[in-house]
């Protein structure tokens, strides 16, 4: 494979991933990861209850699926409006839990950088 072929091959694989995700700019809603090969579509309210999807990286998706197990078992009518709204609210709570963990990690990371002397060249806007 010469340089041009490799580039085209990679662009073809990238396009296939974008096609699968339905977007050319997908980003994990939890951690901000943006390489499409590692991203998946995630149904916030659960596939049975609502077709809406977001993007999530595989790690965050796995974490989120673990939390989803804590939700009540599905009822007889998965498309009941209250059931759907309830699933959305529970899912948002799980999302926020994961996002809070990300925010903590980002915050601690930045403070760690500051302790090493980074950031002094910037001013607070």
């Amino acid at each position: 494979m010469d340089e041009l072929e490799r580039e085209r091959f990679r662009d073809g694989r990238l396009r296939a991933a974008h096609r699968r995700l339905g977007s050319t700019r997908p980003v994990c809603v939890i951690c901000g990861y943006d390489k499409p090969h590692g991203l998946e579509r995630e149904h916030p309210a659960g596939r049975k209850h609502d077709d809406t999807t977001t993007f999530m990286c595989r790690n965050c998706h796995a974490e989120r699926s673990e939390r989803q197990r804590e939700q009540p078992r599905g009822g007889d009518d998965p498309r009941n409006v209250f059931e759907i709204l309830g699933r959305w609210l529970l899912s948002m709570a799980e999302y926020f839990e994961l996002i809070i963990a990300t925010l903590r990690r980002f915050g601690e990371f930045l403070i760690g950088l500051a302790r090493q002397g980074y950031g002094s060249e910037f001013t607070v806007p």
Partner: protein
Amino acid sequence: MAQSSPSPEAPDAVGAPAPERLPIYLRGYAHQPPRQPERDRSTQLPPGPWTLIFDTETTTDAAQRLRIGAYQLLKHGQLRRAGLFFDPDAVSEAEVACLRREAGHRGIALHRLDDFLEETLFKGIYDSGGTVVGFNLPFDLSRLARRWSSARKNPGARTSAFRGGFSFELRPRRPHLRIKHVSRRMAFFGFAAPSKQHTARSGRKRGETNPIERGHFLDLATLGAALTGQGHSLDSLARLLGTAHQKTEGGDYGRPLDPELVAYALNDVQVTRECWEKLLERYAAHAETGKLPHAIYSEASLGKAYLEAMGIQPWRVAQPDFDPMLTGAIMSSYYGGRAEVHIRREIVRTLYCDFASMYPTVCTLMGLWRFVIARGVSHEDATAEVRAFLDSADVESLCDPTFWPALTVLVEVEPNADIFPTRAKYGEEPVATIGVNYLSSERPLWFTLADCIASKLLTGRSPRVRRAVRLAPLAPQDELHAVALAGDTANRVDPVTDDFYRRVIDLRRHTQRRERAERDAGEKRRLDAQQLALKILANATSYGIFIEINVDELDHPEMVALFEGDRQRDVETSALEAPGRYFHPLLATLITGAARLLLAVTERKLLDAGLD
């Protein structure tokens, strides 16, 4: 179709020629109940970064078989590879040797056709969602095919844009390419669904289906015509755009391949690329519409893109419950533009007389922009008022601009030796055409008030009014927003406070004045392109899009409700008329009616001045 019957003994038919009985044809309105749109399985992703620009050279016999092709492969607009390809079955050993020499000498690639298709077209463009660019693409793309068949619609689909088109097999185990030639300037392109499974097993288990890549195609013959307002050859387009390279003469194209013919093919691709770059530069002026140049099929596409950019909801969306019976009456009053020759095969002195921006002008005179941005249309009886109005109308009153907004009226008349537009098979003509002539009919017919006034100006009598309906715009739609026209922020138009048509015409005049006064050649060219863009925009939004009707061919006939005049009947048809996105027949009939009135005023003044 309705029967017209002149009244030979009509007492008020003074001056009318001897009557002739002729069937006349009226436009109807086929009302279809709203349907759930069919699921579109195509990917909605924007084009990828790769572009293939190519051109083919063929045999000169009737088969026009591919001999060689030349191409440039670009990424983000930068040339990454140039090359030649050939069909081994159509060129001799000696010709292949010539190609090798030329390719080696120029440092470009050389491929057999199959390798070019697999490596460049499919792996380079199709797989990465790139764009294929050419001039007159239906011809060049079809030259690459191994086999062809009739394009089919997608399984389960009711209609298809490709019905009646071609399906080309380019490579085994690769999706077919479908092409539907719509007109000399326009064609639809798209890859069919791949035959192999394109959704991973894990996705299929979850009931997911990956969208289908249809490809992106940009035919410069189409975009060039839309952006310049006229059809072109590659030669004339390159000259108009002032590209660095110009098309050359290749001599006898059927002769054995030689370096000169190869150079000719490579130059054609270079000219195509430069035209592409220049057209994209011009199209950047319309970037605010958010429409990709691939989606511009005509000036009308551009007009619709601007209406969308202003957030204007189509009338049929804003007012889905409008009475279809009244739409039938509106449609029956619609007649296209007037084109007539009164004196033939006789040498006469002529005086050239032209109307500047006729359709945008009548739109402004009647205040039709208010209808375009409205939540809908209201209607009320205006019979008595219109009878009085008609009696008082004369040439002088038409010179007063305040007279024209009152013309948004449909009138049902009993034609009796009046002069009206009439659709009929005149003489031995096999198809119905429109003539403006004396008409009498036992059945009442709908016309615009403008047509009634035109008749009065030409016959001296008011047509007999049975009833009249005044149409008025409802309040403006919510969420309309301003746009900058033709890429200049100084050309901002607010759809709520501005009369769009007046503003575009004024801006064009202003730009023309600036262009004339400008000394700098570059700025002069930019201003010229801008005034042309404004002209195209004014024309594109002032008529055609309001009467756009597309015919959908069905496999099986369906029953539709046909409204014609104020009658309704159910008809079975396998050719459904689907209204275009901004279909608004009231505007179309008012515009053409008012344009005929302007011509009638001119005709009256000429006759009065003894210039007939």
